[in-house]
């Protein structure tokens, strides 16, 4: 029977059918199940317990990026991550990426402390999709040292 229909045509139809199936499954599941980070609102809605490792993403709120120098050459950074609705205070004691700026995006990985602040083991700066030449006389905002 396969010879009559043509094994070749069956194979093409089957391959395309599998492709559509895989594509649909991937398309519908990718958005919901592979969560790279939660926004502050999503984290609040899900009631993330303290000490559970999670990633938060949002914008660094203006005037919140601060550094406190401790004894022995240590430095602790604090910043507020916001999504426009909810804010989360983040404390980080590792090095910060040079591109991290107020008003730009950031992703932090760590855990909530019982008092609601977030202790970050890793801070990643997010860059938006806009590329512009600097205005005359201005220096690039990329910082090579902090503060």
């Amino acid at each position, binding site marked *: 029977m396969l010879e009559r229909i043509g094994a070749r045509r069956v194979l093409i139809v089957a391959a395309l059918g599998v492709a559509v199936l895989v594509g649909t499954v991937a398309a519908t599941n990718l958005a919901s199940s592979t*969560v790279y980070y939660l926004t502050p609102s999503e984290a609040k809605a899900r009631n993330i317990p303290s000490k559970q490792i999670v990633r938060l993403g949002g914008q660094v709120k203006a005037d919140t990026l601060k550094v406190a120098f401790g004894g022995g050459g240590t430095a602790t950074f604090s910043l507020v991550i916001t999504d426009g609705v909810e804010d989360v205070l983040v404390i980080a004691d590792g090095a*910060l990426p040079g591109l991290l700026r107020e008003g730009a995006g950031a992703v932090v990985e760590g855990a909530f402390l019982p008092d609601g602040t977030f202790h970050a083991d890793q801070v990643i700066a997010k860059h938006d999709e806009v590329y512009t*030449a600097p205005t005359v006389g201005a220096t690039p905002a990329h910082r090579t040292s902090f503060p």
Partner: protein
Amino acid sequence: MIETTIPRGTPLPRIRPWLGIAAAASFVVASAMALFWAPTDAVQGDVYRILYVHVPLAWLAYLAFVVVFLASVAWLWTKRPFFDAVAVASAEIGVLFTGLFLVAGSIWAKPTWGVWWTWEPRLVTTAIMFVMYVGYLLLRGLSTDFSRRATRAAVFGIVAVIDVPIVHLSVLWANSLHQLPTVLRIAGSPALDTPMLVTLMASLGAYTLVYAYFMSARVSLELARQGRLWTRT
């Protein structure tokens, strides 16, 4: 016995040397533009210039895998060995370009994001695409029977192309670290200054010529292999 030799009526003009020269020349010009002519970025400084390598390679990898898809369909439909040659050539070049743009992206990511790699949607789907097409090439080694090998690879090549649009759309579908599309987007014109866009298009042209040159050489090599295969029996 399937007719596998290309009928030689009039001899084809030898374009490959010219294609090679054009590819090399445009590559030099585009690289010079990317390194010296394009302005620095207001936020990132000079580290953004890897964009002119990373983006054209990514677009051409997408193109290469779509060519694999088309050639695979054509093989299954017509059973002409020429299309199997095109498929394997394009898959090899696509894997090469994907590996290169993953490395380029990683080099950019460390000073900007702060990490060499992270398992975010765009990077995950791209890694999957890379592994799948490496699998495509390995799959071809499983059989010495020409027709069976070509058919097996063609089916895989048809299924695997689904990941290409998924890679591009992944940043739009989920919270991701990788930035949204700057050029290939629905709303608004490309989000980069005109000199940068010009340099990007020049780079794209150069890398496209490189792809075409590689394809020309590789397909010709594969056809020669096929010719030797058939004359031995």
